[in-house]
């Protein structure tokens, strides 16, 4: 018996996902665990794999469609099975309203309007048919019903809203088209308007691709290029706004002698190169050494390895360091687990591997979750110093600049030297100035006498 496949929860925080690509076509056979589609979540592009076998009978959410969690994306069943009733139940054309190709909206409208009429009798007839088909060995049946009970997605045709909602919309000057109804058959009910204030702000941004198409009046400023918000961009916007608005940040900066660290790194990389057989030697970076140094410092000053909750401060017993990695659309923060117990080489390997997969957007959600401290390094971009935004719910983040060559005072002489500036952003609810300072003091000690990093 055919069943509706819905948008699964592929990251702990996702509320919707965008179908990046379908890997199966309608008519393709699907085996358990086959890759059906790739879904862009707020965190990463995730693989949507099949839980059941069958034939892909219909794709309800084409590539590019943004689909809410639990809303239908496709129908899976036996080859040749009639899915019209099921498709009607699923709402026929989910998320079309939000699908990327805006140009298609117009020509599609008459077809969409024709749908409800055709779909209604089909849905009415579907009940007995579905019941007849309920074989003893048909566990998918409840799934289908559950899916049918889900709020239907917004249709391109008539806006269904309760009379009260229409009154409120009129009073508040709200447009109901595009508002997702949570009532039966996608009916917009009063509850749906409560969240509208929040989504209203996002809506213009989502619709803006169409806006520039309207030609600007002559003599007006050229319209900016509107780039639709990716899921990642939305997540960055939401989380960092939340952080800056809610977390009382303060900043502590140190400038350390980086000559010893530089010398150590040179030595290690030379040794690694000499020991490599195929010439593809691993090179450790300043950042790898700083990750390890920070992990040791956090073990010494565990108050910096903590997070705030309204009930208590949680002081972590693990040192899991989130490493910010720039990717094409923004940044992600894969986590190096138990960095305090790993060797610099192990960390170097791990960061390299995680960053590679981050750029390919192949990180799993759990690989980006539950860090206890973050490090962001913009040294490779020539940045001397900066202050980073805390990555909630962590209590602090270390912003690392580049190793600068400059004249330094050694003894009584000015000599060529290397300096490194690091800024710690602290959540003042967790980390006070003195605590942050003692962490930085420990870190300075480790970096200026870096052998400890190797043995710590």
């Amino acid at each position, binding site marked *: 018996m055919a069943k509706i496949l819905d948008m699964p929860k592929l990251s702990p925080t996702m509320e919707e996902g965008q179908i990046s690509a379908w890997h199966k076509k309608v008519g393709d056979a699907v085996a358990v665990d086959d890759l059906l589609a790739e879904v862009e979540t707020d965190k990463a592009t995730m693989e949507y794999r099949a839980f059941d076998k069958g034939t892909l009978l219909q794709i309800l959410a084409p590539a590019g469609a943004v689909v809410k969690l639990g809303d239908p994306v496709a129908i899976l069943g036996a080859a040749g099975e009639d899915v019209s009733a099921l498709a009607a139940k699923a709402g026929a054309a989910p998320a079309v309203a939000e699908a990327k190709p805006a140009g298609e909206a117009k020509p599609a409208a008459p077809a969409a309007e024709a749908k409800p009429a055709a779909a209604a009798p089909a849905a009415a007839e579907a009940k007995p048919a579905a019941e007849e088909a309920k074989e003893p060995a048909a566990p998918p049946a409840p799934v289908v019903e559950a899916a049918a009970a889900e709020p239907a997605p917004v249709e391109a045709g008539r806006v269904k809203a309760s*009379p009260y909602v229409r009154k409120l919309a009129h009073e508040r000057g709200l447009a109901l088209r595009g508002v997702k109804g949570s009532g039966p058959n996608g009916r917009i009910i009063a509850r749906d308007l409560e969240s509208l204030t929040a989504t209203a702000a996002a809506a213009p941004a989502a619709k803006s691709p169409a806006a520039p198409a309207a030609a600007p009046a002559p003599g007006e400023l050229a319209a900016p290029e509107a780039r639709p918000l990716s899921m990642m961009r939305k997540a960055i916007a939401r989380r960092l706004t939340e952080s800056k608005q809610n977390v009382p940040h303060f900043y502590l900066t140190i400038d350390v002698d980086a000559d010893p660290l530089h010398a150590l790194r040179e030595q290690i990389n030379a040794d690694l190169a000499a020991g490599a057989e195929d010439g593809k030697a691993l090179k450790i970076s300043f950042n790898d050494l700083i990750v390890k140094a920070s992990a040791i410092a956090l073990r010494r000053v565990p108050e910096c390895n903590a997070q705030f909750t309204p009930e208590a401060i949680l002081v972590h017993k693990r040192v899991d360091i989130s490493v910010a990695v720039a990717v094409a659309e923004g940044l992600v923060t894969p986590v190096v687990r138990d960095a305090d117990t790993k060797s610099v080489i192990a960390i170097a390997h791990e960061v390299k591997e995680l960053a590679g997969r981050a750029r390919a957007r192949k990180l799993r959600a759990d690989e980006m979750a539950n860090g206890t401290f973050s490090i962001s390094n913009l040294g490779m971009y020539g940045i001397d110093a900066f202050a980073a935004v805390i990555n909630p719910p962590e209590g602090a983040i270390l912003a690392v600049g580049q190793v600068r060559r400059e004249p330094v005072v050694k003894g009584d002489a000015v000599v060529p030297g290397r300096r490194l500036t690091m800024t710690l952003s602290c959540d003042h609810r967790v980390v006070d100035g003195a605590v942050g300072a003692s962490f930085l003091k420990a870190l300075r000690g480790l970096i200026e006498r870096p052998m400890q990093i190797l043995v710590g």
Partner: protein
Amino acid sequence: MTVMRYREAIRAAMMEEMERDSRVFLVGEEVGHYQGAYKVSEGMLERFGEKRVLDAPITESGFTGISIGAAMVGLRPIVEYMTWNFSAVAFDQILNNAAKLRQMSGGQLTVPIVFRAPNASAKQVGSQHSHAMEHFYAHIPGLKVLAPATPADAKGLLKTAIRDDNPVLFMESETLYNIKGEVSDDPDLLVPMGKANIVRPGKDVSIIAWSRMVHVALEAATELAKEGVEAEVIDVRSLRPLDETTLVESVTRTHRAVVAHEGWPYGGVGAEIADRLQRLAFDELDAPILRATTLDVPMPYNAKLEQHVIPGVARVLENVRAVLYRS
């Protein structure tokens, strides 16, 4: 104020009005020497004598017709049926004489009469004796239909009914006769017809009920409060005339309504209320108005099946959750 039972409140109303107005008399099966099938008229024969407390033979059609005639010529009868089910035998008298004569006589005749009896389900009295008859009678222009839920309203409304110059049908309940409540001792305190009573205020949903179902609705509201839902419970009290103003005001606050009543759903008073609300408060509705009613079948005798057919707290909750889109 005196705490008394519902049956005592009805008796008090009748006795006070009979003291006040010598034209008022009580007639019905077993109302005199047997002291009332449900002991509502206990002591009344002794107090007022056989001229004013009349035991009738088992001929509802006959004593209803005679009483309507008495009303036409100036008396003010109270006709008690053993239950409203038996009024079916006298339906022609009620429909064609009581309800019509004032209009057909061009106002020359009035029919100041009260018909009263227990109504709707009792306990295992079978399909023929469990009817909610208010729905039949509220359909008829020319009749007034009252269905109080409390002793205080029973007394106050019955007094109003007896003083009214038109036929009033008074729906009591076997299951309410024993409930107690505070009742005013003031012989002139009347509860007006056509005025609903908000018995529990709330902002999330209006539960509209009368008679026994008011108590069921209150129980449901207590249950809903545990879920954080503030249900407003309205005791309609007067089914015709209907206080649409109070109902519309309530729904304007809550935007959702469930009508809870005994009796079948098809074309009942609940359907009438749903019509008024959708017509008069259309722009306030966030959900279709639903009804929690007796199931659309003849009442089964089997005790478990009977409890399933009668609307209870569970059915009210189910409908309330549906209009809140929580189910």
